[in-house]
């Protein structure tokens, strides 16, 4: 059994070596998960804000759906996408199977419910405080959305980071639609699965520690950029 301190030393050595293949794998992980998170944010944030601000037909169903899909199993998303993107599937002509784009698509589908549900929950309370003021001004409710997203940027950031966390950590979907092809669709999580299957448990754990470090770094940088030290200190914005 490899022990954890050996894995930690291995992880530090890996960073020191700046191995080209490892950099490429880590880079692809970040590229795929950033892309998926960005697309999920573009869809999920306005949707979450709209759910907080507006009362429309089907609103309850969307809220219920987003919350129910928080636990969407990645392997099911992967399998369904595989059947859609397969050459004999309905979207086969797009030639997306076993490409990074297919992995972005899979992670986007996994992140959208998380971003939507958390944005809705976070912004709902804020809107019930500031909403009446906007309505007194006589403005169209939806025009207040940028203001709501700006005032609730802490909640927005948490929703987006939760989506990113889901994307960067999952392996079940991308190993099916990406295929874990060396130099093409191999990411940190699929590389960890591969190394484990080859019995290189210490190296697999070292990769795992690197992945955790990457994920934590992204969160810290995001908080720093947003100037949200309060989250770290107080748990939530007053």
């Amino acid at each position, binding site marked *: 059994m490899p022990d954890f301190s050996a894995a930690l030393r291995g992880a530090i050595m890996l960073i020191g070596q700046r191995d080209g293949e490892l950099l490429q794998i880590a880079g692809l992980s970040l*590229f795929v998960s*950033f*892309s998926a998170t*960005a*697309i999920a*944010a*573009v869809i999920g944030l306005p949707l979450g804000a709209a759910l907080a601000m507006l009362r429309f037909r089907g609103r309850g169903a969307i809220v219920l759906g987003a919350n129910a899909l928080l636990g969407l199993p990645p392997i099911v998303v992967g399998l369904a996408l595989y059947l859609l993107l*397969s*050459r*004999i*599937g309905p979207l*086969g002509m797009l030639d*997306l*199977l*076993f*490409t*990074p*784009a297919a992995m*972005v698509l899979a992670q986007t589908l996994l992140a959208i419910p998380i971003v939507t549900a958390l944005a809705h929950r976070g912004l709902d309370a804020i809107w019930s405080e500031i909403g009446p003021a906007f309505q007194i001004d006589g403005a169209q409710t939806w025009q207040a959305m940028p203001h709501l997203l700006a005032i609730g940027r802490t909640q927005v950031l948490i929703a*987006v980071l939760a989506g990113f966390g889901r994307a960067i950590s999952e392996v079940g979907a991308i190993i099916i639609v990406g*295929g*874990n*092809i*060396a130099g*093409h669709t191999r990411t940190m999580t699929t590389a960890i699965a*591969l190394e*484990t*299957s*080859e*019995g*290189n*448990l210490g*190296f697999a754990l070292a990769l795992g520690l690197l992945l955790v470090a990457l994920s934590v770094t992204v969160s810290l940088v995001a908080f720093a950029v947003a100037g949200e030290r309060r989250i770290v200190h107080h748990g939530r914005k007053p």
Partner: protein
Amino acid sequence: MRNWLPVFCGTLALGAAAPPPSVVLASTTSVENSGLLAHILPVFTRETGIEVRVLSLGTGQALAVAAHGDADLVLVHDPDAERAFIAAGHGVSTREMAWNDFVVVGPADDPAHVAGGHDAPVAFAAIRKAEAPFVSRGDKSGTDAQEKRLWRAASLDPASFKGGWYREIGGGMGAALNAAAAMGAYTLADRGTWLSFGNKGSLRIVIEGGGALINRYDVITLNPNEHRAEAREAAERLADWLLSPDGQAAIGRYQVGGEQLFHPGAAP
């Protein structure tokens, strides 16, 4: 955050544009995980400029992916499944590329007292009699099919095994070896994966040699009507190269720890 969105979307679009000539090879895990393909394919890519994208799957899954039209060439090791695949019209021809052998590995204390033998069905019968822990792949891979054939050769039916000593893990060769090492169980492994496996624990080879343990790897060219026309020529060049004197010599040169893992098997 909003400023970055166009950059992400732009990079995404670039990533999807104009790929170089490439072949998707659906390969059984053993030739990939043992390092053979990483050793020989760069030679092919240097000579031809064709990039080979390897999907490392169990034989059953590799054939299923190819039957969906999602691979351009197949490299597997289950003669029965290959015959069914060809009969179903998915493949055109199957040619032997290389061979090595299976080994039965087990814990050092050898509870079924089978170590040192060469007759796998006899050893399997002894393991059954002792009800010593046995890990089965249970994933319809080539090795799984071979294991089932060995039980049948011992006049035993794995579907009837009771008592928890026979454990189907539904995983790859590496997962089965990890499980066998952790449980002190016997399992059947291909020699390539076994030699390059990093977590052997107390496992060692208990049965090797003998005609029942031959393991042949075949290249299957696919039905042109079901597969990517643009990759067909590149896939044929890869198949021809693997079976050519150059490809066969590269396969024969590959060693792990001073031991040759695969023997060239193409008909001259």
